[in-house]
């Protein structure tokens, strides 16, 4: 049997294919994004980006009501957005299997919070599988589709960053040769959730959880691995791997399904040990349920609720052993990400700072406008929030302060959940200014297409949303289109719109630097004329990674390999020191 190395995300994509799914839908979000990107290699599956997670889940629900198997994927916070359909889908159940992948991000490698989505399984009464490596990611995906149909329920598959982005060896299977043809089948008593229908379904889903609990006790994904017999550990997912490293002699109850828990199996296991541990990342999800069964365990009293686990942290926290960590001393300056050389967002933040705007920010590459030296972001909560927050804060401020408030949002985020906020701005007569940074792509998560980019996930052309017309259609009377590489104009427009006592929208129109199709005209890199540079450091205030301070010569240098020739730096220099490479004699 040939083995291939697959990431957890690649394995979930493969499992979806092998399960015979016909539809996959998602909104991108680290660490889940590559699942859909990998599914595009399987022509049999209709894969698409939705504008947000709620729509993605609803598309999946539609496909499953038509009788097809459907996969829906999102990052952990995406489930917050999709929660509304999810909680009622739990009542209706499915027709074709529906699997919802939640990719959690312990340690917040690239997220705004560290929520533990196992809680959603319990809250929505939806069973949840949790793989511990790529092979399990593939197998549990297939299993999740089967369980979905067998128990008439949507099923969660929970991954974490270390599962999604780790590669391990996987043995592949095949796609079934025969797949049931989807068709229309009416069943309103099951699918129309009026109170009368939903009330009848509630006891059925409570019984479903009990049935799943009993069934899962006999399933091979919940297994006991014998060790020396002295201590017992209950664990699941990636934590299992760390337990095997840190406590090689322990007896382990490894849970492949983390909701509902196999309570009889846990009781039987727990009875054998004086010392019983629960090792899990984030919340005491398993621990609290085990304690509620009257079983004493060592868990979050030792193991931190915050951050991810590692082999060293498991050992360190359980047995008070120190393990080394990376060198975080001040002599080694950190290396946070920064906006790319030539990024179209840069000039806008430079000018917002100069205009002393109070920036109600949002989530995307432009959140890096928070970082020094731009340092021009005052709030950032979740996708789309910039707009409502700007409206709300303006309500309580003086006339003078009100004018300082500017909301800044990207194209993908605006269509995700920002548009509703704009309707509110107009409807309730806010006077705020909204800047939409339209770079025609969902850049932050690795450049995915969206309804403003003109392309679909599979790179086929698609109609483009006209943002200007959209804003006008909801009632915005003042919409300005702006070239953000023109600093003087950018500053002028921002100030004028901030002063306007009415809602206004500014839309920037330059594409992300990393999308080749939108950057076909090459621009020569710039260089600094040594004779003209006075070492005033003004150009360093834009935070372009291509400009480096030469601490010996006390002058700026441009790295010609990464400079994109955007000329933003040139406009900050009073001494005319920046020129196109080759122009300096």
């Amino acid at each position, binding site marked *: 049997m040939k*083995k291939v*190395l697959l990431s957890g995300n690649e394995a979930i994509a493969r499992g979806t294919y092998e399960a015979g799914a016909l539809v996959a839908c998602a909104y991108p979000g*680290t*660490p889940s994004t590559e699942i859909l990107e990998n599914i595009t290699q399987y022509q049999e599956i209709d894969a698409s980006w939705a504008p947000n997670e709620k729509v993605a889940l609803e598309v999946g629900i539609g496909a499953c009501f038509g009788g097809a198997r459907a996969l829906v994927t999102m990052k952990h916070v995406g489930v917050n957005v999709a929660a509304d359909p999810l909680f009622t889908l739990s009542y209706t159940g499915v027709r074709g299997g529906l699997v919802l992948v939640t990719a959690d991000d312990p340690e917040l*490698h*690239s997220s705004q919070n560290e929520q533990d989505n196992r809680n959603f399984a319990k809250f929505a009464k939806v069973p949840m599988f949790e793989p511990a*490596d790529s092979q399990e990611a593939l197998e549990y995906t297939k299993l999740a589709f089967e369980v979905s149909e067998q128990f008439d329920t949507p099923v969660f598959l929970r991954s974490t*960053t*270390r599962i999604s*982005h*780790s*590669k*391990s*060896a996987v043995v592949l299977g095949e796609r079934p040769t025969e797949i049931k043809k989807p068709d229309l089948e009416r069943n309103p008593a099951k699918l129309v959730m009026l109170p009368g229908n939903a009330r009848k379904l509630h006891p059925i889903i409570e019984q479903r959880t009990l049935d799943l609990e009993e069934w899962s006790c006999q399933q091979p994904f919940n297994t006991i691995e014998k060790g020396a017999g002295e201590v017992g550990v209950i664990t699941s997912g*990636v934590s299992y*791997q*760390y337990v*095997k*490293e*840190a406590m090689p002699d322990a007896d382990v109850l490894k849970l492949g399904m983390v909701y509902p828990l196999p309570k009889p199996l846990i009781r039987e296991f727990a009875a054998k040990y004086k010392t019983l541990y629960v090792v899990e990342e984030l919340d005491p999800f398993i621990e609290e349920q085990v304690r509620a069964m009257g079983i004493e365990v060592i868990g979050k009293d030792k193991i931190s609720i915050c951050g991810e686990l*590692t*082999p*060293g942290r498991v*050992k360190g926290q359980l047995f008070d052993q120190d*393990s*080394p*960590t*990376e*060198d975080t001393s001040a*002599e*080694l*300056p*950190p*290396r*946070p*990400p*920064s*906006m*790319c050389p030539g990024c179209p967002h840069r000039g806008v933040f430079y000018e917002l700072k100069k205009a002393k705007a109070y920036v109600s920010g949002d989530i995307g*590459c432009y959140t*890096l406008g928070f*970082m*020094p*030296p731009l340092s021009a972001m005052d709030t950032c909560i979740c996708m789309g929030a910039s707009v409502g927050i700007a409206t709300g804060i303006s309500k309580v401020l003086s006339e003078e302060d009100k004018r300082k408030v500017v909301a800044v949002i990207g194209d993908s985020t605006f269509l995700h959940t920002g548009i509703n906020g704009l309707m509110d701005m107009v409807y309730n007569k806010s006077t705020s200014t909204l800047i939409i940074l339209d770079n025609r792509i969902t850049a*932050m*998560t*690795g450049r995915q297409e969206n309804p403003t980019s003109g392309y679909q996930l599979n790179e086929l052309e698609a109609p483009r949303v006209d943002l200007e017309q959209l804003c006008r259609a909801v009632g915005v009377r003042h919409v300005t289109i702006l070239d953000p590489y023109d600093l003087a104009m950018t500053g002028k427009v921002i100030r004028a719109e901030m002063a306007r006592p009415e809602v206004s929208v500014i839309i920037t129109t330059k594409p992300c630097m*990393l999308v080749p199709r939108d950057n076909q005209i090459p621009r020569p890199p710039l260089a600094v004329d040594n004779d003209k540079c006075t070492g005033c*450091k003004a150009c*360093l205030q834009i*935070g372009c*990674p291509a*400009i*480096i*301070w030469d*601490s010996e010569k006390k002058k700026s240098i441009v790295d010609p*390999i990464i400079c994109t020739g955007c000329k933003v730096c040139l406009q900050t220099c009073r001494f005319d020191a920046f020129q196109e490479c080759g122009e300096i004699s």
Partner: protein
Amino acid sequence: MSKVNNILLAGVGGQGILLASEVISEVMLMAGLDVKKNEIHGMSQRGGSVVSHVRYGEKVYSSIIPEGEVDILFSFELLETCRYLPLLRKNGRAVVSDWKIAPPSVARGTVPYPKDLTQKICSQFPSSIIVDGLNLALAAGNAKTVNTVLLGALSNILDFDREMWLTALQQMIPSRLLDVNLKAFEAGCQAK
């Protein structure tokens, strides 16, 4: 159980770390070993620190290397090397390109790029190998092949057939870039 071997890759987004860890993992898989690799990416195109863990042996559990058990720190940038030095085991070694890339605060002139990093690495881990990756890559014909130069240097100290490295490179690298990368690999093998 036989020992699990641990390579920690470190560098800056855009240096080709993920490709390098992919090549190493393929070689280990070809050798019939259990392999796990893991990486933190997602925002890496904007020049942040990138690390990747590669572990191989008869049976590997965690894809994260237990802290303090790194056998080889395989790094493409000096400052990044020093960041992860504490994770090396006692008799471990670093295989490093002496490339310096200024992090944002250095580029802005707020702090200097730290001095004497090469000495620090070699005094703590005397068997370390420092390679002039950038110049060897330029000599091979493409500045972007530093990662492959370093793979050449790494292949010298790991006990796997040269053929396997070449096969893995052929699998992972697009054909138009293969020649220059094979040259770069060779240059790394010759470097001392």
